[in-house]
């Protein structure tokens, strides 16, 4: 498939035309499958850096004013096609006891904002006042992203000590932590007065979904390096070293992720469809590719890269998921299968078929590896495909008979969720008054009393379907809603879900609902890895590990940074 040729066709048409080549929604949107997803070449972190390299984006540190402990501020300026964007970060230190990944934390060691335009002295003071207030901040449309985070308690001081003494980090001290700073949120899209995402005008360089957030995240990661080197320089003077060799790239940005992702996934079916749809199109492209020595070599290289990365990362399984050691073992198995299938007529299809019979994490690892070979989707096309129209138009003359047919076509899987049984409404979703944090509460312990966040999509659809049984088939939707407005959202969902990959096959309120699965799918789309669950509801991940630093980015930048091996003693 040629990217230019298909540019005029929308995602819906592509997914419809190629339906037989794609994995079925029943497979793709099954919770366990979503919960095994891995980053791909179309993950946001990677499309950002490819575009930045291709278009010659230039980022530089233009201001750093800090004391010996790294308290102060820094400004990073990125020039994109004649426009400037400033990432402004305010840094402080907090007592170790106040360190928490929870969104509700009231103090952060780093708070920052990505601003459309260069920040002058006056505006810097506005940001200095507002940005550290985070959810209580009042920002304006110049601000595109608001973020915050903390230092890695274990490593920040250690890294400063080492560099101050003129030494590089010790391999055995780095363990599985691949970051210096750990973020918890990248707010955007009109929150707290920031610019709405749909307000980015045509031609705006950050108009692709999440591009502003990921530029911000990449610069946040850069700040970690600069802070450590600055503090080490103050302490060590002429003796101090800078990060050298592979250590210059090894650390990414940590992230702690919680339940906020779950409502997003249930509220934006067309976005979910686009994310999964792009991945599935790419997979179908590669499965159909004939083998060439170059393609086989590339697949071997990527598989070897995964093997080395996860082997050197090391570590036991991380329930409910495999850990790095087990993933490395799976990569070894995949490598053996590549060699086995290499001489066959369709090795990529054969590898995929083999993976279908393996455990789900092996399967999704193979999907991720195969997509590295995709030649059918170019980055411009992917950006276009990911920009979706979420508006749903309800024709009030649609009949209840039409709705029944749509239920049969689009939601047969509701029958598998046990929506008439016990446990289907075990939880309800609520927003805490502390920093707008979503949480789950047990219905038997605390009554919703109209405080519930309505992401109980499956339950609402089930209720609508039951109501339809009581009505003649020629009842107009307009009449139905006038009599039973409580079905308003369910009707919108039913009519609007005209795409294959919009619905996780799950009930967010069920007793056995596992938030980690949806979270992982989204994090993989972001380009995060090193999934480390801390409970059923939140996890830590790493982003941009191995990625080029701002000084390294150039036309020669490739995707070779992904899945870096842990540096060795000889690295510097």
């Amino acid at each position: 498939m040629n990217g230019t040729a298909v540019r005029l066709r929308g995602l819906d048409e592509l997914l419809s035309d190629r339906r037989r080549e794609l994995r079925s929604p029943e497979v793709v949107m099954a919770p366990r499958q979503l919960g095994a997803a891995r980053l791909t070449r179309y993950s946001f972190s990677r499309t950002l850096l490819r575009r930045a390299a291709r278009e010659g984006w230039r980022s530089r540190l233009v201001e750093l004013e800090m004391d010996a402990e790294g308290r102060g501020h820094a400004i990073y300026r990125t020039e994109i096609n004649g426009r400037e964007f400033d990432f402004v970060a305010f840094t402080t230190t907090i007592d170790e006891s106040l360190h928490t990944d929870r969104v509700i934390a009231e103090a952060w060691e780093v708070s920052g904002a990505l601003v459309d335009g260069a920040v002058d002295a006056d505006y810097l003071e506005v940001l200095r006042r507002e940005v550290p207030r985070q959810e209580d901040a009042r920002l304006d449309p110049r601000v595109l992203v608001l973020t915050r985070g903390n230092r890695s308690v274990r490593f920040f001081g250690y890294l400063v000590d080492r560099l101050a003494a003129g030494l590089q980090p010790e391999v055995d001290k780095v363990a599985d932590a691949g970051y210096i700073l750990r973020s918890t949120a990248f707010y955007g899209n009109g929150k707290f007065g920031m610019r709405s995402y749909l307000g980015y005008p045509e031609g705006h360089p950050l108009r692709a979904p999440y591009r502003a957030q990921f530029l911000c995240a990449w610069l946040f990661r850069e700040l970690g390096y600069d802070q450590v080197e600055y503090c080490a320089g103050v302490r060590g003077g002429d003796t101090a070293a800078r990060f050298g060799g592979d250590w210059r790239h090894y650390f990414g940005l940590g992230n702690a992720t919680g339940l906020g992702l779950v409502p997003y996934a249930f509220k934006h079916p067309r976005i979910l469809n686009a994310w999964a749809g792009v991945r599935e199109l790419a997979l179908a492209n590669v499965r159909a590719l004939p083998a060439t020595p170059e393609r086989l070599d590339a697949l071997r290289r990527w598989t070897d890269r995964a093997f080395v990365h996860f082997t050197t990362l090391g570590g036991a399984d991380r329930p409910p998921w495999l850990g790095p050691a087990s993933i490395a073992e799976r990569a070894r198995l995949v490598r053996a299968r590549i060699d086995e299938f290499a001489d066959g007529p369709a090795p990529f299809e054969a590898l995929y078929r083999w993976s279908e019979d393996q455990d789900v994490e092996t399967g999704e690892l193979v999907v991720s590896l195969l997509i590295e070979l995709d030649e059918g989707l170019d980055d411009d096309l992917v950006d276009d495909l990911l920009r979706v129209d979420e508006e749903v138009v309800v024709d009030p003359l649609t009949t209840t008979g039409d709705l029944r047919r749509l239920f049969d076509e689009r939601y047969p899987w509701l029958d598998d969720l046990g929506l008439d049984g016990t446990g289907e409404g075990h939880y309800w979703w609520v927003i805490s008054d502390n920093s707008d944090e979503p949480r789950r509460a047990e219905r038997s312990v605390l009554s919703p009393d109209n405080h519930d966040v309505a992401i109980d999509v499956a339950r609402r659809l089930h209720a609508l379907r039951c109501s339809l049984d009581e009505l003649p088939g020629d009842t107009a939707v307009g009449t139905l809603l006038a009599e039973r407005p409580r079905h308003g959202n369910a009707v919108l969902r039913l009519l609007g879900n005209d795409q294959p990959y919009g619905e996780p096959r799950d009930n967010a309120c069920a007793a056995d609902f596992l938030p980690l699965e949806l979270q992982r799918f989204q994090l993989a789309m972001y380009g995060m890895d090193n999934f480390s669950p801390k409970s059923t509801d939140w996890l830590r991940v790493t982003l941009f590990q191995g990625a080029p630093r701002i000084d390294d980015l150039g036309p020669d930048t490739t995707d070779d940074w992904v899945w870096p091996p842990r540096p060795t003693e000889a690295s510097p």
Partner: protein
Amino acid sequence: MAVTVSPREVVDEVHRASRALGCDADLADRLAVEVAFCEVHHGGGVAAWAELVATGDGRLAEAALAPFRLADAEVALRTDGSTRLDLDPPVPLAVLARSLWDLERRGVRCTPDPEGCPGTELLSTLELVARDPDPVAGERVAERSQEALNHGVDVDDDLWRLLHDRARAFLVAESVLDAVHAVGEGGI
């Protein structure tokens, strides 16, 4: 004094505040979309919402039903070519602004014409007649929407504070959630 807010904030705050005032999720979602659209294209959306709240007696939830009644009226319109919707008690334009625009896009002329009216304008009767869609009206609305998405929309500071305070009541105290061991940590 005015505060500049994003259209999304109007949606979020009206939804939450309306939930806290007794509207179910379906009504509150619809109402939030209507009021936000009104604020951008007519002005007075939040003011109309606040007046409904001040009236009390369940007026907010009752008024929030108006878009659904309008959809029912459209069924008759599409069959007969015209229809009339009586709204008793009258409702402010703000609770119907988006729905009326959707009707106009589909080629329905509404009397009185909402264009140029503030969101607080009370509507007691709507005469609806089928006609051809007006493409120029679409461009005008698209431009206003883009402007608001790009630069925000100004809302009276006191009204915004009132809305925000009401919206806070939708949230549940962290201490309550901790006491019942509600789960949830982290965020992005």
